[in-house]
């Protein structure tokens, strides 16, 4: 018997008898019917842009086109396993992988204070006897994490008995917040607990706030604070990824993310949690983690808009800048900042040891050790002017250089944080 060239439907041979035609037609018709039953019906395509997806094996279903500019992503929570969403999933969380620690990689935090620790991360252990140490740690995990090298560890010091709330926040400037207000956004992060993490049930609360102020820090007050994402992660000693999705208030003008918990009892040796890979993005799916800038130099520069610390970089006699002696005891020195800060620095921070700093003296006299610590004279977001005081020996009007006095302890920090 002959067959059709593509689907091999049975056809009568040229020499078959006419009296067998009815049977031949029925046989071929049944074969065609069987084939057509395996095909996606035309009605699956309901409108312009429709594509055929599947809700299961051999179960086609329409997937309507998304909005202009959206792309298709996998999403196992939908019936078809697919979803249209905006393609640009930028992450506005600066230092989201704890790569930048200009203030040092291990920072002691006094109870009841709210300093910045890792760049852009403000930490506030409330109450007394609640001293903490914030430090950079290697994740040491390439199975449960997407190859993120570092995490931030937030540890109540062993023996501390304070049980005040502990808050960690990363607040965005208004200019970086507006793309995320009035939209469905997804928050995600990786976290794990130390063996003695003392929060009840190993709970770490996480929230994403909108506020109605401008450029505020949520740890020190947030006008019109509304936590549009608020949930609790139950940590284990193994890295896990946690996500939350909600729509932010369209009246928000700033966004801040916050982690909090309440310690209990007396802190053991490992009363800490660690987080990394913190991400906020438009859409209802947590996409693979990526940092804000994508490169370490980009991430560093982004952080330096808020804080820049000059250090010796291992050269204990390094010079920070040059200027002119204003008098025999006062050297004015301009520091050229590597990045234009978001505003003029509101303060500078240095060590409290004056002798950590020096000024290049007149020819033949060598360096002159400072008699008090460097201070801010005139702030500017690119070229602030500092004053280096000495007991004398400078010549007014001469040029100078100022910097570290044979110690790597010297530093000068410029603060333009929220």
């Amino acid at each position, binding site marked *: 018997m002959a067959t059709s060239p593509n689907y091999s439907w049975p056809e009568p041979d040229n020499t078959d008898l006419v009296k067998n035609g009815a049977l031949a037609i029925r046989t071929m018709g049944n074969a065609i019917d069987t084939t057509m039953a395996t095909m996606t019906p035309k009605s699956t395509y309901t409108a312009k842009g429709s594509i055929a997806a599947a809700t299961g094996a051999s179960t086609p279903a329409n997937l309507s086109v998304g909005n202009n500019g959206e792309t298709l992503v996998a999403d196992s929570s939908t019936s078809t396993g697919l979803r249209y969403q905006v393609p640009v999933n930028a992450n506005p969380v600066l230092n989201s992988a704890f790569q930048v620690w200009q203030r040092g990689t291990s920072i002691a935090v006094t109870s009841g204070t709210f300093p910045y620790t890792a760049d852009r991360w403000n930490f506030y252990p409330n109450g007394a006897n609640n001293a903490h140490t914030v430090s950079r740690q290697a994740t040491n995990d390439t199975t449960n994490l997407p190859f993120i090298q570092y995490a931030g560890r937030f540890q109540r010091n062993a023996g501390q008995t304070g049980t005040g709330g502990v808050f960690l926040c990363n607040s965005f400037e208004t200019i970086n917040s507006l793309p995320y207000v009035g939209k469905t956004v997804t928050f995600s992060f990786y976290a794990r607990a130390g063996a003695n993490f003392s929060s009840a049930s190993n709970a770490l609360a996480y929230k994403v*706030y909108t506020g109605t102020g401008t450029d505020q820090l949520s740890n020190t007050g947030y006008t019109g604070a509304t936590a549009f994402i608020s949930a609790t992660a139950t940590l284990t000693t193994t890295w896990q990824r946690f996500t939350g999705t909600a729509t932010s208030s369209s009246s928000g003008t700033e966004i801040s993310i*916050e982690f909090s918990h309440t310690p209990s009892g007396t802190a053991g040796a490992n009363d800490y949690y660690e987080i990394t890979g913190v991400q906020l993005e438009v859409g209802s799916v947590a996409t693979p983690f990526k940092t804000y800038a994508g490169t370490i130099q980009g991430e560093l520069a982004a952080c330096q808009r808020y804080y820049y610390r000059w250090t010796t970089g291992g050269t204990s006699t390094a010079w920070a800048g040059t200027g002119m002696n204003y008098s025999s005891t006062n050297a004015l020195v301009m520091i050229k900042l590597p990045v234009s800060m978001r505003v003029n620095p509101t303060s500078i*921070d240095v060590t*409290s040891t004056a002798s950590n700093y020096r000024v290049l003296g007149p020819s033949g006299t060598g360096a002159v050790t400072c008699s008090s610590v460097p201070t*801010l004279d005139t702030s500017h977001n690119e070229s602030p002017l500092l004053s280096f005081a000495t007991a004398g020996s400078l010549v007014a009007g001469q040029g100078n250089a100022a910097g570290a006095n044979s110690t790597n302890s010297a530093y000068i920090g410029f603060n333009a944080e929220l």
Partner: protein
Amino acid sequence: MTIENYLSTDGVEMILVIDGDKAESMTKAEYDRRQAEQSTPIVTNEAKTK
């Protein structure tokens, strides 16, 4: 903690705060703003009252 007043070369009132192993200098206006921040209870949202 010690607090010292000084004038910038432009005559602006400045403050130097020395606290332990750290020192920080700023305008007096910034110092006053921080003092107000420290003295105001941080209860602007429910989380800070824990």
